[in-house]
């Protein structure tokens, strides 16, 4: 029956899991279908949070999406889920004559890097006025490349329409001049679904009127109907054309790019400015931005120049190529351009920094250059217009100021940290305050390593913790010693009871016999009998003393041994008096804990001695009842009984009570049914008691040897 129920439960569990899985799949399929059936345009794509930027400088608003960087393979991936068969259309403008831009389809696994994604790219190339479809899998494989018949105006707006249905992708592009180029590709091992995004290379670019919607075969046919003959596979090996006419067009684009970027007449090389001391109005320089306001710094191929007091709100970024026109102030081989007007010519890539040391900067060699420097943070001060850092590198202490767009997590910077700063160094007094040899205006701070653990604060805490730990250890040792002293005192007390219960009792018996001998009047024979008894008792006492010593280290702790030993004792004490001794052990004979064995034996010894010597009894019954949880020990006689009141404080009763208490036993003295006295000890039997006792003995031994000897 139980097996049947178990089987039923298992079937129900499997059925439930299958139902949940099917339900999940249906919900997923339904959601996926819903996402595919969506149409996205206008405000759907106007918010930056709907996109993930991977390289480049992207901005999205209601009017357009634009990338102002020339970084190769800059991507802007939409957070729009999985798409299968869909189409994207829009208008695209590419700023540079040598550039390309377009859309990414069915993408996944996107990372920063030129071809770092899985998916298709359909785009426009201004360098040879062509359209292209290819596939990226962290490596680029061109699938189709079609040229416009006439060179297209790269500054105009291209209208594009790309459709992906099944394993086919079609692209149609209308140039600013109205010419249409289209191409169609098909793959057997195609990517079936994925996200979408925008991508550009070598040029800044703008997209507008973007629309994304589901597509079908009719859409694909409409766009791919007039697909043009694509280049052969051999011609796709290189991204450059090989036919002579195409090469000329390609070269023309390159020339246009080159002419745009060449140094214009009337532009002064920056390095020459320092040789003209004084103030010189109407000076024009050009260069890449290597440091942003408040200390704008531009660098050409000869040197750099600082342009102070530039409005921080001018939209500049590192790498931008600008023209600055203003008044040159050159003094003490330091030049700056004052009252300058700034004109952005084009965006370029940021200049990589030079790695320098503080000593090199102090010497002035690299001052004004875009540099990277390391230093140990001494302090950080938060200001309304940014953070101020004081650092040390070698013997040099210098200052760093965060630029307006510095995203510095000040809370993560701790004094003692090793930092790497990227920026521009200046010795102008307005930045150094006349205190530091130079100040780095930084746009990026990186923590290389956290402060070392052996900082003064940490060492102080370590010392304090050591003291506390030492105190704790001392306290524990003190407790152990106190505990051991208490144990010794308890042992002394037990020995006192022991002496009373054994030697003192024996001496009483001997004294009693010898006294009887001196008082014997019946004759020599009876007197000798008393003396013989006394001698026998001396012998017994000696043996008992030996047994007592042995009892301190008993080797046999069976319950029945206690009863047998007490029976022998009673018979010995009452020798010749005709006392009947009855001894019983009820229950399973087990080995009792050492402390309990000792307590029961001593209590029994006292009780039997009292019964023989004081009760005047004829029968003594000794009984030990053993159960799983408890042991009950009884000594009962039929004597005259005794007054509890008179004996409560006597050493015998007190000793028995004390022994019983030590083993958590209940001790009672009551009149027996036969008129005598009944002493009962009921002790709990704890299974772990033996182990604890042995552990305690072991600890006592160890601590005694270690600390007291």
């Amino acid at each position, binding site marked *: 029956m139980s097996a049947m129920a178990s089987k039923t439960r298992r079937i129900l569990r499997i059925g439930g899991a299958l139902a949940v899985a099917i339900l999940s799949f249906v919900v997923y399929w339904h959601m996926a279908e819903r996402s595919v059936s969506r149409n996205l345009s206008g405000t759907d794509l106007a918010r930056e949070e709907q996109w993930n930027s991977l390289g480049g400088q992207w901005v999205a608003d209601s009017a357009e999406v634009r990338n102002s960087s020339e970084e190769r393979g800059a991507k802007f991936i939409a957070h729009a889920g999985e798409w299968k068969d869909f189409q994207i259309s829009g208008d695209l403008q590419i700023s540079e004559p040598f550039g390309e831009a377009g859309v990414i389809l069915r993408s996944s696994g996107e990372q920063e890097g030129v071809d770092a994604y899985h998916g298709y790219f359909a785009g426009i190339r201004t360098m040879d006025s062509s359209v292209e479809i290819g596939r990226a899998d962290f490596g680029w494989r061109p699938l189709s490349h079609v040229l416009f018949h006439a060179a297209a105006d790269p500054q105009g707006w291209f209208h594009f329409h790309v459709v992906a249905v099944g394993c086919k992708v079609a692209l149609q592009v209308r140039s600013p001049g109205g010419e249409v180029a289209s191409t169609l590709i098909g793959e057997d091992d195609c990517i079936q679904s994925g996200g979408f995004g925008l991508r550009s290379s070598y040029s800044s670019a703008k997209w507008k009127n973007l629309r994304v919607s589901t597509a079908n075969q009719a859409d694909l046919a409409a766009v791919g109907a007039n697909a043009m003959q694509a280049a052969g596979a051999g011609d796709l090996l290189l991204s450059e054309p090989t036919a002579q006419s195409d090469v000329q067009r390609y070269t023309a684009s390159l020339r246009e790019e080159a002419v745009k*970027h060449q140094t214009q007449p009337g532009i002064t090389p920056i390095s020459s400015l320092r040789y003209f001391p004084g103030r010189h109005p109407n000076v024009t320089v050009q260069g890449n931005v290597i440091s942003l306001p408040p200390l704008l710094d531009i660098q050409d191929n000869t040197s750099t120049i600082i342009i102070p007091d530039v409005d921080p709100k001018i939209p500049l970024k590192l790498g931008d190529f600008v023209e600055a026109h203003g008044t040159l102030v050159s003094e003490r081989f330091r030049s700056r351009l004052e009252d300058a007007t700034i004109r952005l010519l084009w965006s370029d890539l940021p200049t990589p920094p030079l790695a320098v040391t503080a000593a090199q900067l102090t010497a002035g060699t690299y001052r004004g250059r875009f540099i990277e420097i390391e230093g140990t943070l001494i302090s950080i001060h938060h200001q309304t217009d940014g953070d101020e850092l004081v650092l040390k590198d070698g013997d040099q202490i210098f200052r760093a100021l965060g630029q307006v767009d510095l995203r510095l997590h000040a809370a993560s910077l701790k004094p003692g940290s090793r930092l790497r700063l990227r920026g521009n160094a200046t010795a102008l007094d307005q930045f150094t305050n006349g205190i530091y040899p130079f100040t780095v205006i930084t746009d990026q701070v990186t923590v290389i390593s956290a402060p070392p653990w052996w900082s003064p604060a940490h060492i102080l805490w370590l010392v304090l913790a050591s003291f506390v730990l030492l105190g704790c250890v001392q306290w524990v040792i003190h407790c152990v010693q106190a505990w051991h002293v208490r144990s010794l005192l308890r042992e002394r007390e037990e020995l006192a009871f022991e002496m009373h219960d054994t030697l003192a009792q024996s001496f009483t018996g001997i004294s009693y016999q010898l006294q009887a001998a001196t008082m014997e009047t019946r004759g020599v024979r009876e007197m000798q009998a008393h003396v013989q008894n006394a001698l026998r008792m001396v012998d017994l006492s000696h043996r008992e003393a030996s047994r007592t010593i042995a009892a301190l280290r008993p080797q046999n702790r069976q319950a029945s041994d206690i009863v047998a030993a007490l029976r022998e004792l009673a018979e010995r004490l009452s020798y010749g008096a005709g006392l009947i001794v009855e001894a019983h052990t009820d229950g399973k004979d087990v080995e009792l804990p050492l402390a309990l064995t000792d307590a029961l034996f001593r209590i029994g010894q006292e009780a039997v001695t009292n019964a023989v010597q004081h009760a005047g009894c004829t029968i003594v019954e000794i009984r030990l009842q053993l159960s799983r949880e408890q042991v009950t020990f009884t000594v009962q006689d039929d004597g005259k009984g005794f007054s509890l009141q008179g004996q409560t404080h006597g050493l015998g009763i007190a000793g028995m009570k004390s022994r019983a208490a030590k083993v958590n036993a209940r001790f009672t003295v009551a009149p027996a049914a036969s008129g005598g006295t009944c002493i009962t000890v009921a002790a709990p039997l704890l299974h772990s008691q033996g182990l604890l006792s042995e552990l305690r003995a072991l600890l006592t031994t160890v601590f005694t040897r270690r600390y007291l000897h």
Partner: protein
Amino acid sequence: MRAFGRHLALGLLVVLVVSTGCRNESATVAVIPRTTATLLWEPMHLGVVEAARSRGYHIYWNAPAEDGDLEKQLSEFTSCVERRYSGIIFAPDETVASRSVVLDAVGRGLPVVIVNDQLGPPAGRLLSYVRNDEALGARLAAERVAEILHAHGSIAIIAIDSRNESGLFREEEFERVMARIAPAIQIVHRQFGDPIVTRQQQIAQEILESHKADAIVAMTAIGTRGAYYAKLASKNAASVRIVGFDQDLISPIQSGDVDSVVVEDTRTIGQIAMANLAAEAHGSSVKGVTLVPPLLMTRENMNAPEFIRLWQFSAYAWQQQ
């Protein structure tokens, strides 16, 4: 007891699945060149993948979008070390700054093959070098300059790569060979470079406008492109010859605007680097430093098979890497 058996079996299954996952991850090699999607580095991509496929490895290939982006390259390297690939093939963008991360990776037991740089630490059980034979490349360029200038005239050297030990060695070796084979040719201008094409163009423009050199020798691909752009934009510079290093644009060679370029055989470099890495991963010893001879590409030989084989990366189906 039965429940315990079930739990044990489930635990073993989980361990099996997890360990299988680790093994898959460990069979992937990370390759980090200075940048990607260029004629210089994509042949190496192809070479690595060819060698990896025959040995049962997968490839993770990525690098900064632009040359000179040291920060992103080191970040990529560190990330690959943390992801516990079975090895890394690395072309450092900057020699000195890359030393510590490479030594750290080797210290963690990760095999590393350095491509196209003399990083500094000697080759060992987990570290080897495969690089372009810069001495031979410098000789090819020097001989070409001597030939086109008939061993007389003046040259300007631009775009000297000061961030890279191989770049400095390339320039020093070029000057040494020039002095030996064509002592009458004067070097009238030397300038360090950076990865900004516009700046290299403006440097070359200044040289062209000053008419002080008969030829420009550009020590990097970006420098070569900058010199080419300057020549394109100039009206009176047709007679100035350009000899460059490292393949970039092909059409300027075809048109004759760039006389010649010393082309690195990065496909072979990639093949050897991957073979070395696989051997290091299996505890085998490899040659500490392997030099791969470069080729001089001119308009006359640019369609030779040894060059065409370099551009075949475009036909490769990268989803299989």
